[in-house]
Every structure is written in C-alpha cells, then in structure tokens.
C-alpha cells in the first residue's frame, strides 16, 4: 500500500548538512498498524512527515498505490492529503475559534471539493465514535487534553482516509489518557484503517502489529 525506498534527509546546520535519515526503506500493508519508535533525534518524526507527504526527502521515493508521491505537483499533493492521508499530531492542533464539530468538519472546508451531503452527520458520528457525544459544540479551550486529541482523531476519521499517521499522539497526555488514545487507534485499525504511529514509548508501541525501531536515522531492527 505504502512503500518507502532508500529515503534520505538532512537538515541544514551551522556545521553543514546534518543527516537525519539514511537510506530508510519500509513497507506498510493495507490494514497494518506500524509503530515507529526511537529516541529523540532518531529521525522517526521526520520519517513520518516524509511518509505523510508533509516533508520532501532529499533522496529516495515514497510509493503510494504505485505512484511516487514525493514528486507530485502541489495540487495533486493537496488532493492526496485531502483524500487518502490523515495526520494526528502530538499537539492536536485544533483551531481555537472553531467548535469540536467545526474542527472535525475542517477537511470539508477546503473549497477544492464539494463537501459530502452528510458531512455534518459523519462528523457527529466520528465525535460519538471517539467518545465525545455530548461535546460537539464545545470550543477546544473547554476540552481536556485527551478530549482535544480525540477531536483531532475524529477529524482524521471523518474523511475516511486510507492511512492514519499519528505523530506522538500520546506525547502530551497522561498515561491513562494515552492508553485510551492508543486503544482507540487499535480499534480503528481493527476496523480496517492502516495506522502508522510514531512514539518513544515502547509500551504504546507494543499495541501495534509491527514495530520499527529507529537509531541514528536508520532502522535498527524490525519486530
């Protein structure tokens, strides 16, 4: 479904280019739950950003449905993000001036494609699914950290994407709430959604079907 081939990425630094990823290759099968673990600076978040097309690699390819998505023009890239890929971030990034329901509806407000007729109904169902049934019209400021992350997951779910990328989704949550969020991701995966989750917590990573451990910008081993 998704394949990364020989991905390399460097960031500029005072001492010259600092390599973050070196020759990383991986595959994600349909319906798989892949956890990418590693210490801070191991390159796991950079890898996730490249896989989700938010960042372009210096070298290598990311193939989705047989197409190299690293070379797509801007419009096609936006369409791919709108249609097939969904991303959940550590800092849930909800728009503070939109209600939970409006935040979930954001993927339908791009102006590039007409929103489905049942968009609002779908958004409500997604919020119900993540356990926020009675809080549709609350502003993010009136939700707890865990609830905000659930809204972000509902926002990822609403467009019925093929792959959910989660970058440290438990990073800003307490352990109990973190477990709930990972449990939710497991449930979604059980329903057929492919999930790629970056975490530095091996406990959460153990919930995935496959774990990729990153060390110094390259996979150390796969479990």
């Amino acid at each position, binding site marked *: 479904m998704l394949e990364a081939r020989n991905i390399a990425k460097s960031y500029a630094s005072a001492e010259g280019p600092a390599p973050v990823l070196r020759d990383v290759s991986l595959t994600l099968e349909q319906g798989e739950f892949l956890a990418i673990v590693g210490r801070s600076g191991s390159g796991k978040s950079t890898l996730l950003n490249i896989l989700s097309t938010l960042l372009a690699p210096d070298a290598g390819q990311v193939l989705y449905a047989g197409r190299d998505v690293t070379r797509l023009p801007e419009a096609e890239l936006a369409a*791919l993000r709108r249609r097939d890929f969904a991303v959940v971030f550590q*800092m849930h*990034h909800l728009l*503070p001036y939109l209600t939970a329901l409006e935040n979930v509806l954001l*993927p339908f407000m*791009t102006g590039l494609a007409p929103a489905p007729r049942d968009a609002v109904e779908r958004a409500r169902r997604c919020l119900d699914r993540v356990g926020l049934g009675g809080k549709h019209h609350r502003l993010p400021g009136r939700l707890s950290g865990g609830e905000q992350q659930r809204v972000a997951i509902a926002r990822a779910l609403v467009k019925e994407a093929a792959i959910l990328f989660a970058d440290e989704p438990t990073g800003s949550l307490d352990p109990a709430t973190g477990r709930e969020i990972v449990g939710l991701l497991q449930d979604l995966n059980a329903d057929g959604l492919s999930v790629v989750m970056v975490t530095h917590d091996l406990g959460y990573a153990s919930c995935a079907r496959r774990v990729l451990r990153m060390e110094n910008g390259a996979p150390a081993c796969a479990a």
Partner: protein
Amino acid sequence: MNLLTIPLRCARRKWPRFVLLTLVFALGATSMVALWHVSRVVGDSLERKLTAFGANILVSPKAETLAVSYGGVSLGNLLYEVRHLDEAATVSAIRSIPLSANVAAVAPKLVGTAALGAEQVPVVGVRFDQEQTIKKYWRIKGLFPTRENEVVLGSALAARLGLDFGSAFRLGDEEVTVAGVLSPTGGDDDTVVLADLTLAQRLFRLPGKVNFVEVSALCAGCPIEDIVAQIGGKLPGLEVKALRSVVEGRMASVHFVQHLTLAVALVILVSACAVVGFSMLSAVNERKAEIGLLRSLGYSRAGVFAIFCSEAVLLGAAAGAIGALAGWGVGREVVRLLDAAGEVLPAFSPLEALAVCLGMALVAALAAAYPAAKAARIDPSAALVSL
C-alpha cells in the same frame, strides 16, 4: 460550511482584534470619504467664487477681416461687415443648453460711442445684474443703476470729465444721471460709460441687438469644451470660443484643492494599509501552526491565501461601510463649520457608499496580499514542528 467559514469564525471569536483593526481602517476610510466630500463641495464653491473674476466663454458674430498693407507696410486688419447678435435669441439659446446648470452668468454687451457735450465717449451697454455676477471685484462710489436712464462711469473718464455720482448730463439723445463711479479697475472699464443695455440699444438705434455675449461657465463637473460645443450647436453661424487662460487659471485653483486633499487621503490610506498589512503579517506568524494544519488537511496554497485575503476583505468591507457613513457625516459637518458651500451640503449616495465598501475591500485585500502569500508559502511540516 465552506472556506469562508474559517475567516468568519476567526473574526467572530477574535472580535476585539477584528474590531480594533476595522476601526483603524475605518478611520482611514472616514478621512478619505470626508476629504472627498469636502474637496468636492469646496472645489465647486471655489469655482463659483472665482467666477466673479471674469467670463470664460465669448460668443460673438463671425467677423470678416481684411489684412491691409501698402508698399510692404502693414496697416493692420480692416474689420468689415460688422454683424450684431439678437440679444433675446442668443441669451435664450445659451440658457437652454443641456449643461445649463453649469452656466453661472450670461452677460450681453453692446459697444459704441455717443456724444457727451463736445466729445465722443465710449459707451458699453450691459445688463448690470449679470455683469455684477462676473465682476464681483467692482467697487462703486454711489450705487449701481436701478433705472434705465442711470449710468456708471469709469474712474478715469469721470475724473477727466469732472463728473461724480449724482451728476446729470446729456448722452447722445438721452438725459442720464450718474448713479455711481467705479473705483479704478486697471482695465477697460475705467474709461467707459456703462449704461443699461436697453438705453444703449436706443442710443445706437439697435433695439434688441448686442455685439457679443460673455458667458461664465463652471468647469468643475465637465470640460469647458463640452459647454462651448453645446453653445455652438445651439448657435450655428456664431463664433463661440473658450478663453483658455481664464479657464486654466480658475481650474488650477480648483485642482490644487482637489490634489491636496487627494494627497492627504492617499497618505492616510497608505498608513491604514500598512497597519492592516503588519497586523496580517503578525497574524500569519501567530497562526503558523494553523496554516501547517490546514496544509496537512489538504488545503492548497491558494486556499490558505484565500482564507487570509478573505479576512482582509471582510475587514475592508466593514471599514468601508463605517467609513462611507461616518465620512459623509464628518464631511457634512466640516463643510457646515467652514461655511464653505452656503446652502449646498454633501448628499449621501448609497451607490457611492457601495463603491467605498468595494474599494476598501479591494485595498484591504491588496494590503493583505503579501502576508497571505507568505502564509501560503509556509511549509506544513516546518510550521507544525516549530510549535
């Protein structure tokens, strides 16, 4: 729910910032609209006042001239076949042109000489009410004539003949009284007898006839060529010419006022634009994560650009609406305080208000274009990681 939902909600939830920015921008719009109203009214008023310093269109018969020279010595031009205009028909034709509202005065004249005692003196027949409209600089010792057999003397002529107001004398076949003596003007009026036109027509045995007609036209609203063309159209066969130096001198004053206000308005507008631009730039920096998120959700660069531009358009339209209304009110008060326009005060026009709204929305969008373009160029991963 669509792309506009985001700027609308943002404006609603962040209303103090939106209101403050709108007020700043509205201040600019108000100043511009008020200055525009004031300049328009003051310009018109100024031109009306300048009308007192002379006519700017001359209507006369087409005169035939013959250049006379002998032995290589020029003896000047010989005017022959002198024709006269019919006063009533000419004045009525001028008053009936489509741009008649721009005609401030129509002053017919009949010029000739008449015997005053042993000598011939130049006599100019005028309609005093019209003449005073275009020669408000006249100062008189005594009064302007109220009766047909009363005349006004030029200062130099009165001094030469030893006459003063109240003097009576015989002019041609008519007994006349001096109603007043003009103060020196430095022009032709100093050496003539100014008589009522009807009296002059009787003196010269040319009832209802005049030599030429001076017209004072207001040119703020239309070019003088239009008025000249319309008079020419009504009076074919006559010579109608614009006295360009008078027009240009008069319009230079009017245009100076208008250009000055335009310059001030532009400075205000540019300042308001700078405030909006800087504010949008700071909003873009504050909302980097939001932009990164939108891009990660599949919003195109154009979509992000549109969101920030829409915010500015919303702000500009609101400021334009306030500015159109407040500017009209302020302009009205300023005109009233300056007593610049007499009874004429700026009128509120819904069409003009709409134009101000649209104009300000466009200007705000232009001011926000750079910040919005900057927002559209933000790399989504960098924006999300940076926070």
